């Protein structure tokens, strides 16, 4: 559309073909991951371009070795999402609406957190976690992973909540609802999309986390799948089939969310960063 002269349908399908080629190149590594996973016997040899059959033994081995770690990832990620939303949603509302003194500074600080490198946080956090006994604990990792999503969630939800008409809130207040009630009954339901987007991203950030898993754990007690796979290649250099099968499994949530929650993902990437 736009300025381009009304293109003939054939040329537009030409773009589709070009687009498919681009997609093929971009997704090739992911295809190769799946392809390698389905050829567990190839080991260290070359992998055929297409699997000859449906050999799922790599997957069953990966599930056996990494199933627990997948579960750990799931638990930690959900925990992180819960902490993230519980902390960020009220703050977003407070910053959007109450006009508190210092609100601007807080929003500013929230934006600034993006410049603090994770490894620097880990460096200091590890020492405090040792003192607090949070090393190798689910709760400790959940807290650290929640920190990945909180600034993003505050910025995103706040920019949405600012646009909630003041009359709606005031009407509820006149009916005698206190601030907590207004927040839970009126503001949160109205901000549903922003909350879902924030939650999804908090999940993806926590699920993808590798650094905190690597640095805040010294034993095998709390090992998410990212760390599990990383250590897997150290120990199973010859067994690329299972490593790739585990990688496929770890990529499933991302793929599922992209398909099921596409609009939230797109909204999150643009909304969270261009604010």
């Amino acid at each position, binding site marked *: 559309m736009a*300025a381009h002269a009304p293109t003939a349908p054939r040329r537009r399908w030409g773009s589709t073909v070009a687009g*498919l080629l681009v997609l093929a190149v971009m997704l090739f590594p992911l295809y190769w991951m799946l392809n390698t996973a389905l050829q567990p016997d190839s080991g260290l040899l*070359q992998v055929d371009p297409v699997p000859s059959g449906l050999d799922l033994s790599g997957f069953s081995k990966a599930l056996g070795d990494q199933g627990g770690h997948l579960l750990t990832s799931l638990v930690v990620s959900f925990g992180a999402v819960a902490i993230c939303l519980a902390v960020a949603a009220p703050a977003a509302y407070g910053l959007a609406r109450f006009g508190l003194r210092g609100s601007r500074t807080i929003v500013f600080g929230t934006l600034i957190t993006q*410049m603090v490198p994770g490894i*620097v946080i880990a460096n200091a956090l590890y020492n405090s976690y040792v003192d607090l006994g949070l090393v190798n604990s689910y709760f400790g990792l959940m807290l650290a992973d929640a920190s990945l999503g909180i600034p993003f969630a505050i910025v995103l939800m706040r920019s949405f909540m600012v646009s909630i008409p*003041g009359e709606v809130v005031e009407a509820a207040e006149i009916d005698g609802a206190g601030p907590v009630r207004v927040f839970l009954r009126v503001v949160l339901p109205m901000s549903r999309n922003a909350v879902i987007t924030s939650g999804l991203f908090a999940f993806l950030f926590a699920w*993808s986390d590798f650094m905190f898993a690597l640095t805040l754990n010294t034993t095998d007690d709390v090992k998410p799948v990212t760390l599990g*796979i990383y250590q897997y290649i150290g120990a199973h250099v010859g067994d690329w089939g299972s490593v790739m099968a585990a990688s496929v499994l770890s990529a499933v949530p991302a793929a599922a969310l992209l398909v099921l929650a596409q609009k939230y993902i797109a909204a999150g*990437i643009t909304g969270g*960063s261009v604010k």
Partner: protein
Amino acid sequence: MTTSTAPAPAKAPRKAAAPGPDRARRRRLAQWGFVAPAVVFMLLFFGYPLVRNVVMSFQHYTPKTFFTGEAPFNGTDNWSSVFQDALFGKALWHTLLFTAGSLLGQFCVGLALAVFFNRRFPLGGVLRSLILLPWLVPMVVSGIVWRRILDQDTGVLNTFLDTLGLGGNTPWLTSPDMALLSVILVNIWIGIPFNMVILYGGLQEIPKELYEAAALDGASAWRTFRSVTLPMLKPVITVVLVLGFMSTVKILDLILALTDGGPADATQTLGTLTYQNSFVELDFGAGAVVGNVLILISAVFAVFYLRANRTEGK
């Protein structure tokens, strides 16, 4: 700019509107209750590490520290020993190359794809959203997949190049001369979707009339791109580059998964060096020094970010 309408029409019946100073204070307190947890959380997880890293960089940590709890202050010993180590200079240089190379590649390809997808064509929307997938896969996992693809002897890239008669024996990750370039290329692949989506969003905001006017003036496609698209896109470009910088300069996952900083420290960056100092050698003082340098570099760019954010106009 909250339009705080005066305390509601007088006949608010049930809750007597007694706006005494006591009530106002209680109200303020309740309001702070909403914000306080987040403030405390961010102070603990972002503010405190900043301060603590500065302090730690003047302390002597050894593997024994975690049993004895003793990390005596040692002046500027950590700083001078880190700066005297040739590895630090190398890591700094690699960090700059890695960041600049990644950003350049991600941005150029991302922009090209954004422009491409900005034209309407059948299935364009579906293809555009599927391209996001590489960005959503955990970075460490992408790194491991690429490690297999780039394997010198049996990786598919060399096999493919071999079939084309283009050599096909490139030691992508095992040669100190190639490794950093390979890591940059992989990171470009990872960053393209992010750049594309944001730039695409920016393109969509450009009023169509501008293009119509340019077309009326008989401007060529390239001319239109240079005189309409780029200037209009500038705020978004700044944001994309600055956010890209801040997330690229600190990357650790990808490098550990691809090369572990090797071979012969050829892919060691400030991020991996911090990790190695602190968590491999348990010299948290030295790690803190490198980490502080990393923060300093980020801080310089944070200034750009904030300025960009301000011009963005909120």
